């Protein structure tokens, strides 16, 4: 096996333009290794979410190619590709007419697992994200708090044990206390599960808490890619702006 074996995802000179010609991403080169947590950091509208959607083929690149597990996404059958990739978004997008258990069981059901296996798995997942199955399995999303809903969202993404997870500001809409709780639980979860994670955020503290590496995006370009402390040392103005947020004394306790 060559070095490719270590790469879960690779961006090769990827650009993405929308129909009216506006460039959202230009010439992105990026390698994401198995088991690492890559945080895509940047302001709103810098292209983070677009980058994410190129991985599970919700979008196709205009130029270059994105490889997942050594194959270009355009060669993957999109449905197969997406079922190997967990996906968590800020709005969560739970199905309001499904119970918590049905929401969590969605992908295993689509994959045709046996009923009993699905049930066991969904209960195991609910426990993993800190929701007691006896209390929550039969409830409906509108009856849950925001934090509980996002725990279900994470459990749903993990259900079929995908090697890769994409997370698009999953904790962005939560109150600060709940957000902190979930971030920390997610950290310990990741230490056990060792998934390949691509995590989008504009919250620099969250980035430092979770990232093995950070990719900093500005106006569709990757201005910095490296370990979190490289961001602190960088001379790039955007990196300095984010680093400054981190040094805010009122938030200093989260500094590494």
């Amino acid at each position, binding site marked *: 096996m060559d070095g490719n074996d270590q790469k879960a995802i690779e961006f090769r000179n990827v650009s993405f333009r929308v129909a009216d010609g506006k460039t959202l991403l230009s010439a992105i080169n990026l390698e994401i290794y198995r088991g690492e947590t890559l945080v895509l950091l940047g302001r709103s509208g810098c292209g983070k979410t677009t980058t994410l959607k190129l991985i599970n083929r919700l979008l196709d690149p205009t130029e270059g190619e994105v490889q997942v597990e050594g194959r270009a996404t355009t060669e993957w059958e999109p449905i197969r590709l997406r079922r190997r990739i967990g*996906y968590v*978004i800020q*709005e*969560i*997008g*739970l*199905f309001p*007419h499904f119970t918590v258990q049905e929401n969590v069981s969605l992908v295993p059901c689509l994959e045709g697992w046996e009923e009993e296996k699905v049930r066991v798995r969904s209960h195991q997942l609910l426990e993993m994200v800190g929701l007691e199955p006896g209390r929550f399995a039969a409830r409906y999303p509108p009856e849950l708090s925001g934090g509980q809903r996002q725990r279900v969202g994470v459990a749903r*993404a993990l259900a079929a044990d995908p090697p890769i997870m994409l997370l698009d500001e999953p904790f962005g809409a939560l109150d600060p206390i709940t957000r902190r709780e979930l971030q920390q639980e997610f950290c310990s979860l990741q230490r056990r599960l060792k998934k390949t994670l691509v995590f989008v955020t504009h919250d620099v503290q969250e980035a430092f808490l979770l990232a093995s590496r950070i990719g900093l995006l500005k106006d569709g370009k990757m201005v910095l890619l490296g370990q979190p402390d490289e961001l602190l040392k960088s001379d790039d103005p955007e990196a300095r702006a984010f680093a400054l947020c981190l040094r805010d004394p009122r938030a200093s306790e989260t500094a590494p």
Partner: protein
Amino acid sequence: MNLGEFFLEHRAEVLELTLEHLLLVGLSTGIAVLIGVPVGIALTRKPWLSRPVLGFANIMQTVPSLALFGFLIPLNIYLFHIRVLGGIGARTAIAALVLYALLPIIRNTFTGINSVDPAIREAGKGMGMTDRQLLFQVEIPLSVGVILAGIRVATVISVGTATIAAAIDAGGLGRYIFRGLRMNDNTLILAGAVPAALMALAADLLLGWVERAFSSRIFGRLKRRSIAWASVVAVLGLAVGIGIAVYPGKASHRVAIGSKDFTEQIILGEMLAQAIEAKTDLAVERRFDLGGNLAHQALVAGEIDAYVEYTGTALTAILHHRPLTDPKEVYRQVKQDYEANFGLEWTQPLGFENTFAILVRGEDALRLNLRAISDIAPYAPKWRAGFGQDFMSRPDGYEGFARTYRLKFSELREMDLSLTYRALVERQVDLIAGNSTDGLIARYQLVQLRDNRRYFPPYDAVPVARRETLRKYPEVREALRTLGGLITVDEMRQLNFEVDGEHRPIREVVRDFLAKKGISGPR
């Protein structure tokens, strides 16, 4: 007779018409759902189609029902040897009702699915749901409340619109309403209107309940599989229903007799039918009550084999010739042109003429000494006139009439013919154009003014039949011949009065008349 008594006495018929009505509404709404929901879904996938498709459905809703019937009847569309479109009867009524019901169903399906939270759709797609899975497991269940609301609107509209179906012999509660209008009988009108209103109300409540049940969480608790089964059963039931409604069920030795939609016509249709039953072994199918020019269209299309037409009407309204005054010449011309253009044959005249009768109240005629139409010239500018839609539009109708007699009324009210008598009696109008054989003329003591300038062409009543039918069953020609010259104007007026004034059943009136004339009843 009050409404309660009427329902008691005619409960079997009321039930039958209500069931017919229910069948019309149920089948048409069902078909509209089968077409409208998939179309609405397709529009969410191809949004650029939404403007033309919704535009089409919108236009369909604005087309008047009689116009739509006129367009649908000549169609001849077959699917697996079963005629699915065209002709008179339930088939065409259902097609029209489907077209009317499409808009709310398509629109609500389209907007319902489009209003599903985009985050939910993105999550589903991102987790690897196929478009079909997303549609059936997420988008449809989440918009089912909105879709059902559209179906509810369509159903309630259909219950009302289906009353028009009686104009093309499709049955339903409209029969009572039309009959009541014609006979000036409020009880009969209510006997059709009240059950229809109750049905609309019931449909609204029931579907409203279903809608709420589906919108709330009950849906989540239902097993999706059982919903799928329920849909399959519903669709199968609908298909069987359609099959029964559409299946021709026509025995080979059978003739169909039609009529237009007023009392005299139904009496004459019944007379043709009974004469044929008396003189031949053929089974007779009665397809009466066809509105507007539908009887003619049905005859040309082969939906019916004969009905009674009036020479002047055929000359002007159907052949679009200029009005003539000589009765023999008119008969000769329509006979010749019908042969050549339609393959239809004018048999022997029945013996009476039903011309337009310009009518005023008896007291006015007496007070103002009115005898001929030209006598009213001085009063017309102060009078209101009430005319049927037919009179207003036909070439031998209002326009030439007003020109010939140099009349100008203070107001023209265009309304259903059967309503004009009532309007005249109730002093809503001062002059109407009725039919000279109408039984109501005597009943309301109206006076018919003489056509002293001979404006109206002759309107001799003559059975018109398909040449093909006469060739195949010469005995039908024989049967029609026995009716030649049988009825005088006075006798026709008397027959009309017995039905309209005395509310006797038409079958009985005709049977007695034929017995009196020596033509025996069904063997």
